[in-house]
């Protein structure tokens, strides 16, 4: 039989005061902690708050969090203008997001999602701290897109509760979440992570922890072959993009997309997948990518990439 317990968190907000938790495999998630108030962290916070979760948004400095919350508010305001959201829903969601600058303030959360820099050492440290601070049943999720969930969980005592929740940018528009099972992740953790993802209105796919998971791995040839075709002089940047859209029905060509993502970011993902596969030639980056980065042509954000902006 399931036990019922009442936990009163340290947090002061009235809305966060009482939690009824059903322990066990289907433990309910009421409160979401997010570490990192960058693009992905705030994107996830926005979706979670709109799905009626209370969100503790953590970052090391208050300015970053406030800027993050301001971005969330601005984004929601646009949705209100487009009549995709009511004023009440917006106010309710914003009132659910609480800035936090101490990690220990996340200890009451039922799920914590990490969205910090893609740096294995930083993430490993963070999860070790979280594991020690938070209650035993809290799900610990990483939003990593290119690091190994297994490696991130490697210093964690209760590593069976560490899972990958890979959201896509922009989080409020992209329906997909890759739920990544590390070598230590339990089936129960997977189940709870999928249920949580579905409560956020997302479509969850189960993935085993392997380099690039599904989307970033299977998409490698989209860029890699296009770069080789360009490098071999078979067609130009503009022609390849036109062909991929016109003949393939893709909404964007590979070069437009690299410009949008950031050529440096795309190269970093390629390199990470390549290295994790121990230099399997299928994932080898292309010299053109390196040269673009060296030249400071990073795509849209730098004003110049494969195209001029």
């Amino acid at each position, binding site marked *: 039989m399931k036990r019922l317990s009442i936990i009163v968190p340290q947090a002061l907000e009235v809305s966060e005061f009482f939690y009824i938790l059903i322990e066990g495999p289907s433990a309910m998630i009421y409160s979401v902690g997010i570490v990192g108030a960058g693009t992905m962290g705030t994107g996830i916070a926005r979706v979670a708050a709109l799905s009626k979760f209370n969100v503790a948004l953590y970052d090391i400095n208050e300015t970053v969090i406030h800027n993050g919350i301001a971005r969330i508010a601005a984004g929601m305001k646009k949705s209100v203008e487009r009549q995709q959201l009511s004023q009440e829903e917006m106010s309710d969601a914003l009132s659910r997001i609480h800035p936090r600058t101490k990690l220990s303030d996340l200890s009451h959360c039922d799920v914590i999602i990490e969205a910090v820099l893609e740096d294995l050492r930083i993430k490993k440290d963070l999860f070790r701290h979280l594991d020690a601070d938070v209650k035993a049943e809290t799900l610990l999720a990483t939003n990593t897109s290119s690091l190994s969930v297994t490696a991130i969980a490697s210093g964690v005592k209760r590593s069976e509760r560490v899972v990958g929740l890979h959201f896509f940018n922009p989080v409020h528009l992209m329906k*997909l979440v*890759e739920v990544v099972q590390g070598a230590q992740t339990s089936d129960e953790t997977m189940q709870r992570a999928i249920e949580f993802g579905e409560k956020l209105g997302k*479509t969850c796919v*189960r993935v085993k922890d392997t380099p690039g998971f599904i989307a970033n791995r*299977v998409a490698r040839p989209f860029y*890699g072959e296009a770069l080789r075709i360009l490098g071999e*002089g078979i*067609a130009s940047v503009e022609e390849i993009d*036109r062909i991929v859209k016109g003949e393939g029905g893709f909404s964007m060509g590979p070069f437009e997309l690299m410009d949008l993502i950031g050529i440096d970011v795309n190269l970093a993902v390629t390199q990470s997948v390549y290295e994790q596969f121990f230099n399997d030639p299928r994932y080898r980056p292309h010299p053109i990518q390196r040269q673009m980065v060296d030249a400071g042509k990073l795509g849209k954000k730098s004003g110049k990439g494969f195209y001029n902006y």
Partner: protein
Amino acid sequence: MKTPVAPKNQLSVLIVGDDPLVAEFSEIAAAAKYAVVPPGSIKNLRPVSGKISIALELSNIDLAQKRKNLEMLDRSLPETTAILSSSVNVSVLDQARWIIRNHRLVGIAALPTLVKNTLVEVSPSAFTSEASVDVARRFFASVNKEIAVVQDRVGMVLPRILCQIINEAMFAVQQDVALPEAVDTAMKLGMNYPSGPIEWGEKIGFTQVCAALDALHADLGEERYRVCPLLKEIAATGKFWGK
């Protein structure tokens, strides 16, 4: 030497080659009011050859048969008739060596289902005349397609990219990273692909995908293009493991 000219009254188009492709191109040509000469008529081509405005050779898999078809077309059709040949798995230059009047040979990227989209890749060999490329351009314009002229290389552009995506998806399934449906869902919802790579492979035909990858592997000689064993098996048996 007479160079191919654009057909004045766009009389008829002769289409030979692999099964789904012949049907797809026939449908598109017929919709644009071309008289489509049935592929079976290649054996008794002589009586109809005078009326044929343009010929399409759409074999990708059996290259020996492709060669026979091209030789037959080259012998039977007047040298003013352009031949558009699918050049996904063999370069236009290699095909040009099979025939005598190779100035009229133009490569096109033909993989099943792709011709339903709005653009067709076209590729001349070193022997192809400007006039022949122009015939290809006018033909595709008459069936409402734009063209992109690319260099003559195995796999051309989109088939090379797409088949490699399908191959990678198959490797992921083979390694049990995710179920095939999950791979398709991830690529559609996470990357906005118009179709999941595995269902796409199924629509194109795994045999066609396999043949394109084999050709790239042979042409470029790189491990990178090695066909996923699961893909090979599905191409050979027509079904997934355990399904």
